[in-house]
């Protein structure tokens, strides 16, 4: 059934006829989507696509290379601020400012990678957490970046076309997201990606077969920060306004949750985790509007969970869903996907 005859089959994107079909179907659906959906739904998908980009970058670091980061909101902020500053202060066009913002973020990733050479596990978690917190503090004090007041995103111009609708932003974000996902998937199938995984599974053995740990660990941080920075640059335009508070510690934790819930060390898992968590965040914020259940939960949260009097039941439900997914499928959503695939392979027997 799936006997391989050719080495190229190991690394090529599409393994079989059905996969070609599904990819074409997916691209067609994504292309038609902005014509069929309302503005709010397009906005939702834009957020999802940005989070997919970030989750891919973070998964490269955490899932593939085995280096934890609790500071990715810092790179997200650097990407967003750098893109806006390059456009406003230097007058660069968006299509140049965005990748430059990504590279600036990658530079910071490289710098954070240096102490990571000597730190592991919980120590690295604290170091990266400190990085994320420091970046927002520094940004709050830089007056030319708006300080605590934040920055207004300039008009988004691409070759004279002013992008001012959600559908327009979708047309910018989605191709970038697909391109970056494709790039990461390729990377994990070839030499550099394998070296990352080697570091995760046994850094001693990796060194002894010729993998330069210094180079590949810092490279993993840089690539991860590049993806996150690109995500940040795009986010500035979806939100229309950024301030240091946009990139708080919860953002870092959400990114990590996307990767863990989606599936560590999996491109598809990153996509699924980012989509699910973005959707949950948006939907659960409106949980109080549900018929019958909504008022009940709101009342419950007011009486039991809240300290300040604000309804916070959405966080409780969110946490519950995360815990359940991890308990029932430690491999995350990717694990569900693999099991479903195996189940249907032998269908209907």
């Amino acid at each position, binding site marked *: 059934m799936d006997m391989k005859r050719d080495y190229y089959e190991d690394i090529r994107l599409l393994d079989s006829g059905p996969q070609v079909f599904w990819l074409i179907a997916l691209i067609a659906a994504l292309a038609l989507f902005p014509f069929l959906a309302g503005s709010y739904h397009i906005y939702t998908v834009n957020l999802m696509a940005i989070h997919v980009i970030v989750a891919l970058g973070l998964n490269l670091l955490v899932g593939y290379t085995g280096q934890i980061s609790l500071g990715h909101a810092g790179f997200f902020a650097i990407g967003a601020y750098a893109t806006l500053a390059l456009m406003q202060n230097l007058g660069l066009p968006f299509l140049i400012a965005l990748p430059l913002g990504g590279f600036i973020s990658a530079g910071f990733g490289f710098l954070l990678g240096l102490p990571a050479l000597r730190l592991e596990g919980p120590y690295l978690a604290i170091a990266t957490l400190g990085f994320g917190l420091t970046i927002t503090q520094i940004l709050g004090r830089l007056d030319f970046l708006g300080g605590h007041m934040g920055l207004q995103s300039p008009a988004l111009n691409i070759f004279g076309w002013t992008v001012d609708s959600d559908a327009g932003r979708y047309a910018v974000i989605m191709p970038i997201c697909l391109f970056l996902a494709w790039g990461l998937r390729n990377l994990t199938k070839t030499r550099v990606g394998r070296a990352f995984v080697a570091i995760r*599974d046994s850094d001693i053995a990796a060194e002894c077969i010729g993998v330069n740990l210094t180079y590949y660990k810092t490279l993993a941080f840089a690539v991860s920060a590049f993806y996150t920075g690109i995500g940040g640059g795009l986010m500035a335009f979806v939100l229309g306004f950024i301030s240091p508070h946009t990139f708080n510690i919860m953002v870092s934790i959400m990114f990590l949750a996307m990767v863990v819930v989606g599936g560590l060390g999996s491109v598809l898992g990153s996509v699924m985790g980012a989509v699910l968590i973005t959707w949950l965040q948006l939907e659960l914020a409106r949980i109080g509007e549900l018929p019958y259940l909504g008022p009940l939960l709101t009342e419950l949260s007011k009486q039991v969970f809240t300290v300040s009097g604000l309804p916070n039941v959405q966080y409780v439900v969110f946490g519950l869903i995360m815990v359940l997914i991890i308990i029932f499928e430690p491999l995350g959503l990717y694990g569900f996907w693999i099991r479903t695939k195996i189940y249907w392979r032998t269908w209907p027997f």
Partner: protein
Amino acid sequence: MAILDIDNLSMVFGGLTALDKVSLSLEKGSITAVIGPNGAGKTTLFNCITGLYKPSSGSVTFKGKRINGMKPYKIAALGLGRTFQNIELFNKMSTMDNLLLGRHLHMHTGIFSGSTFFRRGSRAAAEEIAHRQKVEEIIDFLDLQHARDRFVGGLPYGTQKVVELGRALATEPEVLLLDEPVAGMNMEEKQDLMIWLSDIKEELGITLLVIEHDMRLVMEISDEVMVLNYGEPIAQGKPEDVQNHPEVLKAYLGEDSVAGAA
């Protein structure tokens, strides 16, 4: 001239002398065994040669180049491979991917070409295909076909040891250090491994340095044996000479039994 020359190598951890003035030279194409009781410093010796430890004094010269103090990946690039006592495989990868990692040094795909290939003829793809063929030769040589696409973490212990040997061979080393290659293997696997080791020496011309507790294997395959005890070399020479050396009997069996035997 010796391909690997270890001269007066010492390694001190705090107050503990793990290696005390060890000297050893490996002739090209020979098999040398290092034996000794547990804690004698055998693995420490390997770690000093491969750059995981920086020796306290002495020197290691490989192909005429002093390598102590160099980073492990640079030493590996010069053509020195090794395996580990407690198997250090990349557990969540397939056997194929593990062996491909052995080809890391011989491949050149970087971050940009590796992430943007899109067809068979692209440089990264062409390189992947070429090196898969090379790895396939090693899979054939070590009879690993059944394990080819399986996760190495799920393979039996003996097979994992063979995969690790394969990964070291994939780096195309000139000198290969094997840390207890047959530990935990059954008779049949040991027999296979002995044949492979002599093939590696005869056909591939690789110089071997082997740590091993299995005396039958040591006596059968090695050209030269060195015995370590508490970090000190206590005997060195042909296997049959070392076997009856009084110091060696003392280290292994204790003072009294030697007196009793004599």
